[in-house]
């Protein structure tokens, strides 16, 4: 089944400040969609709205017919979301946390067992399964959050800088998993600051800047629309952040005095 995610005139305000400014975007199933942007550009906010975690101020996101503001409870069932920083219940163990997530999501027990075993093996989580989450390392917590979001085999997987803190092996596995996910006709949306990950993984990309989408398309589209040839330079170019050598010179001066 193919479906699409559409943002229509999506705006989100926090108080008087605008985090997302009239965003229009379509993301189709079968894609890995990357969202790039400097700090504070609105990536997290956008992802949270897609996942039904935050409500928009105006405009909507539709997953097929579902409105992420109004049909939150259904949206949350078909979406998996990995937050920017894992805030798991610290006094539970990863196993208990996964049991909790699976139960709340009503996943079939046998399916859950099989998936949980597989994921935990793949990410090397076996040894930490019965320690309290509070005592785990950052990357290990991140793995728990990632597994928790994938347990129900969601239609849409939303990851906010999920590669953060993962070791090379785990991030390689995650990348492969995400590609596989998309190839099964699902949709993966993720944000990252790591250009290689974006280049490597994304079918399409959007660059957010101050709450607006300033460019969107496949990597080739972006390249042909710019004189730069790698994503990092394109990114710095379109977000007007390419006067780096000048900044560095000034910094050096400042440090000396």
């Amino acid at each position, binding site marked *: 089944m193919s479906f699409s995610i559409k943002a229509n005139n999506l705006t989100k305000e*926090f108080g008087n400040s605008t985090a997302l400014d009239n965003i229009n975007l379509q993301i189709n199933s079968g894609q890995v969609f990357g969202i790039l942007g400097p700090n504070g550009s609105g990536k997290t906010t956008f992802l949270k709205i897609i996942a039904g975690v935050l409500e928009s101020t105006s405009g909507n996101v539709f997953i097929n017919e579902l409105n992420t503001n109004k049909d939150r409870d259904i949206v949350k069932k078909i979406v998996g979301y990995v*937050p920017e920083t894992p805030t798991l219940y610290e*006094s539970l163990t990863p196993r208990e946390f996964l049991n909790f997530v699976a139960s709340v999501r009503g996943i079939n027990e046998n399916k*859950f067992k099989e998936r949980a075993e597989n994921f935990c093996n793949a990410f090397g989580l076996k040894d930490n399964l019965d320690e309290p989450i509070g005592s785990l390392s950052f990357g290990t917590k991140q793995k728990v959050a990632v597994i928790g979001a994938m347990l129900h085999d969601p239609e849409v997987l939303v990851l906010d800088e999920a590669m953060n803190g993962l070791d090379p092996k785990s991030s390689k596995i995650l990348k492969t998993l995400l590609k596989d996910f998309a190839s099964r006709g699902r949709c993966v949306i993720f944000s990252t600051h790591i250009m290689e990950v974006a280049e490597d993984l994304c079918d399409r990309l959007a660059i957010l800047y101050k709450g607006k989408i300033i460019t969107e398309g496949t990597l080739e589209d972006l390249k042909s629309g710019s004189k730069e040839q790698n994503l990092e330079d394109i990114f710095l170019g379109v977000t007007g952040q390419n006067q780096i050598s000048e900044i560095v010179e000034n910094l050096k001066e400042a440090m000396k005095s």
Partner: protein
Amino acid sequence: MKKLDFFLSKRLMIEQRYQALKSNQTFLRNVQKSKNPGEYVEKFVLRSYYGICFFFTLFSLLISAEYLIDGATGFKSFTEGQIGFVIFLYALVVSASSSFFFLSSLNSERLIEPLTIMPVEISPFMISISWFMFTGSATFFIIFPPLIISVFFFHNFLSILFGFLWGGILIFTGFSISSLIYVFLNSRKSTSGRKVRSGLTNALKLLAFIAVFSIFDLSLYFPQFVTYISPNLYGTVKYFIPLLGLRYIVFNTNPTFQTILYSSISTGIYVLLAFFLFVYSSSSITKLMMEKVNVTKSTFESAKKTFKTKSKRTALVEKDIKIVTRKMQNLTLMLLPLFFTLPTVFSIYATGSIGTLNASSAYLGLLSLLIISASFYSMQLIISEGDGLENLRILPVTNWDIIKSKLTTGLIIFSLFSIPIIFILVGIGILRITLDILIEIDLAVGYIFASIISLRWLMKKIPKDAMTVNFYSFNGSLGIIFLFAVTAISAGIFPIMVILIYTFLASSIFANSFEFLMLIFIFNIIALYLLTSRYER
């Protein structure tokens, strides 16, 4: 006190409130609108401080006025110092419990963490001063009204001085007690043989805690105990018994040189004691917080090491229970309602002679435990989510799901406490077993009704965008008091209705306990049905 320490204390106090406020849209908008956001936040905090001071004054005035309205006998008991006892005890209890919340939220919001990497000497008083700036100093407003009333009637201006000093002694001691309990509960054990031993030490700690509180309860709460003991105090001893001595020191109706001398000596000694205790506890709590921020205790065995699913509701309740029982601090808070109400419950039984005591009065006695538990557990169970709230936002869990699970968890804990009490009553022959069951059902239904009301209010208070929740999300102490009032009304309304009906029909409520309890049950069930039918569709 260096300027930096003062600055840090203030920062800490404001930051704590800010964490709870930041997702509130109106607050956010006003912050952004103001020319100086930092100043706005400070002003906002100051305003809520005035609110709390005002409320405490009002509350204490109401309690004091109650004695005066009572006419000659009331006036007599005012002068005999019961008011002093009640109000000062109240200040101590408020101070101790709000301090405990203050410390827990410092820890759960990780507010000390940034300070641990700063290359400055942190004053041992940083945390306690931060406490005093808001929580501690506001509590003083509880003791002012009776002092002023007392001066107005008896023209002894020393009342103000001694009252103020004793208020300080008790309020600071409240903080000291809470910090020491906090340090005691969280201090690190040796890591060897952790699993087996820690369960045991936890149990021992909890027992020690219960023992201390029971002594506190027993000696201070029984009203008869006070009236029995205080007139019997003789000579100079009476000046030196904390709380009970206040009648002679603070509410002294005819001061002489001798009484003033004794009062001064006693006050001096206790000020010194309280001061040393405060210094000691301030430095211990600062040391603990600076050393190990946000430790999660690994004090449990997870029994079944398999992947397993349960129903959504069971999973939510199980998670709530785990969060509460695995963190000492949460567990301790769960016991507080018991300590605050048991004495009242039992004093009702103790004052009534066995003859007049029956199922109706037993039920009414337990109602106070119900009210405190329903409001307190509702709040504590939501607060214990902390930043785990984000998990609930991510998962397909509705507010109604959350309410149902917190309600069930609270009911389980409440039953753990209330059922044994009822069994004791049956055991000593006060209740018949049929009525016993009816009381239990009535209490359960009443608990469900009252806590749905309070949980709904609490959930509404959390801003939609918030991913974390703490004590100050509900306006701190003020929130507790409001919540308490709401719960009291929703739990008390049906018993009161039934009593009114009986009064109208001019028959005694004590005549037929079965009828009385059945009527309350019916009213409660109808209300519960009306309340929940909107959700359960």
